[in-house]
């Protein structure tokens, strides 16, 4: 059991610096390692386009977009989980468990199934955002103010099942072509394979929304200990909650739009960070963004190295790591 004080032993910026160095190291490793291993020197040459043509192509066309997408979705899912935990005052809340990810997936699957993704690249994130907002609205309606932890999580289970059924229906619809079915399956599994600069572009607004989240840390502290109490202390709770809900839903939806369902990131990253640096959101917001990015880059690296020639999809790796962690958490808090 971590003592309440362990985190105050660290000077404030130290964990943030450690996280940044870790993220940089993981990102560099991710650029070097692959079917064709590159030395850090060659990677740098490729990154700076200094004449090494093969390295330049490998880095710029394949690895860099993949690493950037991994970082962006990791940051988005982790921050989204942190926000939901503060919002619902429940450390088990996360985009995956509450069905928000499933909403984004259902939206994406429906739009692929309808064949609309061939018209415009923007249809997919738009549908994903719409699906995620429908799911968020359902969670809010099902778990009204003052509802206990059980009710919230049960609402999430029901939503996950319903939205999963939507995805399954689209998938089982016999009129779909083989190609569309494969594309849908990709979303359901969650993957970073063949990510291009278009995907980076779709995920790029994540950075903007993360910046909007930054100044809300202190208010999240007060909200996470009770909405009525926070309001009495001078927080404009209605406005704060609206902002948090919109931000966390969009973050999850954008992540889902570019990489499909990637589970457990929003649950375990904020949790690990809380164990290390404590519950203050002014520190947790930046650290969960960086930590989430580092976690997904690491999981992607693991999946590529241990998954054989085909690689393990990112959603499988995060679930294999996150699932046991979640069970350990439940046992610990019982």
């Amino acid at each position, binding site marked *: 059991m971590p003592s*309440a*004080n362990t985190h*105050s032993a660290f000077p404030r910026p130290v964990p943030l610096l450690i996280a940044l160095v870790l993220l940089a190291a993981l990102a560099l490793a991710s650029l070097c390692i692959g079917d064709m291993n590159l030395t850090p020197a060659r990677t740098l040459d490729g990154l700076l386009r200094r004449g090494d043509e093969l390295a330049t192509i490998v880095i710029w066309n394949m690895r860099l977009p993949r690493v950037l997408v991994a970082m962006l979705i990791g940051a988005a899912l982790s921050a989204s989980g942190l926000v939901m935990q503060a919002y619902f*005052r*429940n*450390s088990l809340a996360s985009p995956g468990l509450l069905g928000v990810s499933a909403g984004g997936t259902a939206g994406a699957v429906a739009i692929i199934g309808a064949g609309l993704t061939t018209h415009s690249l923007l249809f997919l994130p738009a549908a994903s955002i719409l699906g995620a907002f429908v799911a968020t609205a359902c969670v809010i309606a099902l778990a009204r103010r003052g509802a206990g932890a059980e009710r919230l999580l049960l609402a999430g289970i029901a939503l996950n099942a319903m939205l999963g059924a939507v995805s399954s229906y689209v998938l089982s619809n016999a009129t779909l072509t083989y190609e569309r079915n494969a594309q849908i399956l990709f979303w359901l599994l969650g993957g970073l394979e063949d990510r291009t600069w278009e995907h980076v572009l779709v995920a790029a607004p994540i950075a903007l929304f993360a910046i909007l989240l930054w100044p809300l840390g*202190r208010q999240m*502290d*007060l909200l*996470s*200990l*009770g909405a*009525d*109490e926070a*309001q*009495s*202390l*001078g*927080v*404009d709770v209605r406005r704060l909650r609206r902002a948090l809900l919109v931000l966390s839903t969009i973050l999850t939806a954008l992540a889902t739009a570019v990489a499909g369902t990637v589970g457990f990131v929003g649950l375990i990253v904020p949790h690990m960070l*809380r164990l290390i640096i*404590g*519950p*203050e959101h002014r520190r947790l917001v930046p650290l969960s963004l960086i930590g989430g990015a580092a976690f997904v880059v690491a999981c992607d690296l693991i999946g590529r190295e241990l998954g054989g020639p085909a690689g393990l999809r990112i959603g499988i790796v995060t679930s294999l790591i996150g699932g046991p962690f979640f069970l350990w958490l439940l046992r610990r808090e019982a």
Partner: protein
Amino acid sequence: MTPALTISRATIPGRIDGVSLALAPGVMAGLVGPNGSGKSTLLQVAAGILPAPAGAVLWNGQPLARIPMLERGRRAAWVPQDARFEFGFTVRSVVAQGRYAHGDDNRGVDEALARFDLVSLAHRPVNRISGGERQRVLLARAHVTAAPLLLWDEPLAALDPRHALEILLLGNKHTRAGGTLLFSLHDLRMAYILDTVVVMHEGRLRAIGKPAEVLTPALLLEVFGVRTEITPSLSLALP
């Protein structure tokens, strides 16, 4: 003199019905009534947490709707009956949250920790302390806001006799300095020694005034269903 707190014809369907009252500055008022009579709802309406669609709430004669949120945090402090703390903030950091509306300047936090007997708990996580300790943390957080209007929901329920007396004394000091305190309680003997009592019954304001005039045997029998008798009994005081 402008009342510190004015509630006029506040109605929340199914909970309170047309409640009006006014409390002058310097008044320490006890809010009594059977379970479910609307005490907590009335306190939440007074604090502006529960907006009453019909009726109005005024602080110092100013309608609540015209007071910005942040300023409300400096002018009134509401303490809930109990709080469930999910996250392990330290006792000290929770008390320091009372300074949110003052730009988190931490003023008076150490003094409040000492006054509410929380110094030895200052670094304990707030989700691992007892109910009575939690109650003191909530009261200390309300105290550091330095708000003139205090609204406490059953502040004494979880406290041992010594801490309960200390809290009452603190409330007394606050009102003597010109502040206003409205708090709910179940102990009618305690209510009997206050400046003012407010009696709620089935969502309506049944009576308001000096305890000796309000808490008559007839009213107590009607509202609480108890017969009363004045007898010598155990009385407690701080040494």
